[in-house]
């Protein structure tokens, strides 16, 4: 017994917390990537996560393409859309204050969500768990649906892969250099605008991928992103704006904290993350892993 809760139940809840953390990680990673390298506070992230889930539902309903195809197609389509956004709208705002990008993306998010709501209503669409991942394992502490295990594996590998790509490869070093000094990197003959566009596309593709992963678990509905995006922003702020490693670690940690709260004092489950954020910002204004600027 710990905190008056049987150990078994506690372990089960912690595991569930990790699973939720996996979703936060995929989303906050994209946000942190886009903020860290492009300095854009991307409020469309939640809407594009929703668009990813809808893309999966659309290709299933109208083209008969199932989960595995959607896992590839949805991020591609949404990533492409993101690149268009960046090229034609966001790129005009780089010289201005952060606030303009925030306003633009916030407005776009409302437009995208409004569009889906107009077309498909708000109660959501059913999306089945793929056959190969149905069922579950009895772990003793809890029954773990195979699909949830799969989500954690995909999320962890994508996070690790992205982190390695940015921190350990040549391409990643170009990206980081371009953040520090755009003009200089361009002088070396690297096409910085193209790189920025691709990075943005990749960041939102991550959101879409998370959307596809979420489709069989949550109801696919136009509001699913706006419910999540605020929490994910808090995660990014706690981790330190722009720190990718920070975003990943914080996501899993906060998933655990939230899981415990749901068990011990469920009424506070939706506020605990913001409480952590407020306290942390008082103590460490740059976040856990952020650099003071």
């Amino acid at each position, binding site marked *: 017994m710990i905190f008056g809760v049987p150990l078994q139940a506690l372990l089960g809840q912690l595991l569930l917390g990790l699973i939720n953390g996996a979703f936060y990680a995929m989303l906050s990673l994209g946000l942190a990537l886009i903020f860290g390298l492009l300095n854009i506070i991307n409020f469309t992230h939640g809407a594009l996560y929703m668009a990813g889930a809808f893309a999966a539902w659309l290709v299933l309903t109208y083209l008969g393409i199932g989960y595995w195809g959607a896992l590839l197609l949805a991020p591609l389509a949404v990533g492409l859309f993101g690149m268009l956004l960046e090229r034609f709208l966001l790129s005009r705002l780089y010289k201005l204050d952060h606030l303009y990008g925030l306003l633009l993306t916030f407005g776009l998010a409302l437009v995208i969500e409004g569009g889906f709501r107009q077309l498909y209503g708000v*109660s959501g669409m059913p999306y089945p768990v793929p056959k190969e991942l149905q069922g579950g394992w009895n772990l003793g502490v809890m029954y773990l649906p195979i699909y949830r295990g799969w989500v954690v594996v995909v999320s962890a590998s994508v996070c690790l892969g992205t982190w390695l790509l940015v921190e350990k490869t040549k391409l990643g070093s170009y990206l980081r250099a371009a953040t520090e000094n755009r003009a200089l990197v361009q002088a070396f003959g690297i096409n910085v605008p193209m790189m920025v566009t691709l990075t943005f596309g990749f960041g939102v593709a991550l959101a879409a991928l998370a959307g596809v992963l979420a489709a069989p678990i949550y109801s696919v509905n136009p509001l699913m992103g706006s419910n999540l995006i605020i929490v994910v922003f808090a995660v990014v702020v706690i981790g330190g704006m722009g720190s990718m490693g920070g975003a990943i670690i914080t996501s899993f940690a906060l998933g655990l904290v939230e899981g415990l709260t749901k068990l011990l004092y*469920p009424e506070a489950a939706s506020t605990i993350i913001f409480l952590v954020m407020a306290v942390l910002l008082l103590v460490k204004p740059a976040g856990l892993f952020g650099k003071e600027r």
Partner: protein
Amino acid sequence: MMIRKTILGTVLSVLIFGPVHAEIANHKVKIGVLTDMSGPYSDLAGQGSVMAAQMAIEDFGGKVNGWPVELVSADHQSKADIASAIARKWYENEEVDAIADLVTTAAARAVREVAKEKGKVDLDSGPGSLPLTNDWCSATGFHWTYDNYATAGGTATAVIKQGGTSWFFLTADYAFGHDLQAQAERVVKANGGSVLGSVRHPFPSSDFSSFLLQAQSSGAKIIGLANAGNDTINAIKQANEFGITKNGQSIAGLLVFITDVHSLGLETAKGMLLTTGFYWDFDEGTRAFAKRFGARMNGKMPTMVQAGVYSSVSHYLKAVQQANTTEGIRVADKMREIPINDFFAKNGKIRADGRMVHDMYLAEVKAPAESKGPWDYYKILRTIPGDEAFRPLSESTCPLVKK
């Protein structure tokens, strides 16, 4: 042309109803539909409610005693302050005589206050909370389609009779959720069942796995969902995913709309019991309405809330016609006087507390193989007579009820 029609109408109405004492003051009847157009309840009410009101007006001939009937609509965004501001503007400046739908309790309560103050009519179809006909009741306020007592009570009674004697509640942490749980608990305890625990989840929530796991370890036979809309949908979906329904525990949704079942899909929702005030495929009358409604709403079938808006608006118009006035209290008295007979309600009657008492239906969600086509979702297991479905008048705390 207009003038001639108006004169003709007046003459006709004088001929039919004798000398006119109380006229319709502004030479028209105006009905407002105030609902959630974009938020979580916009599918079960929203545009469909506006369409239902419009159909009610059209079916009435667009005129009452010669005066044209106008329809306006607005989005209250499920916020009490917005609902209250729009209601005030409508009643005070725009000559609206009655406001219909009012989905979500917070909005309904806010409008009820304004309507009471102005002596105007409000026709609640969307909200579920019981206080609307108890502590907050009014002489000109009506609660039409369902309430938590009827839906939670009806479902809980049926579940207990099937042997579901021990319960655990997942409750949305706001007034509506608490009320829904209280209504179900009342029935569970009255029938010798036990409540093993409950957990209050934030509203709205998307991840229910943690709460479901707590429900699972409680060992209760029944997990009662005291929430609505997307919360209910996600909870049921995830209960399926975590194998809860396969391992002998059952889910009871205490307020389930047909749009929720549509969103869940029959494979996930099959076998679930629920109580509803209306099902489109119940008889000839309901099918005829649903067909006309569907033709104008992209094939969607009406929810009980939308059908209730039709019924309440057409009953209101009938009362205006017979009372020959739009003065709130006199129309309201007339509404209580005439029984309600349409596709929605058979011999429905309005009590002193404003409750419209009509039959409710206990339904079971069909399995995919039993469903013949889109929206063919329910088997009606039992008609619950109105007097059994709704809370007895003797228990009402409404000050208007004489004891």
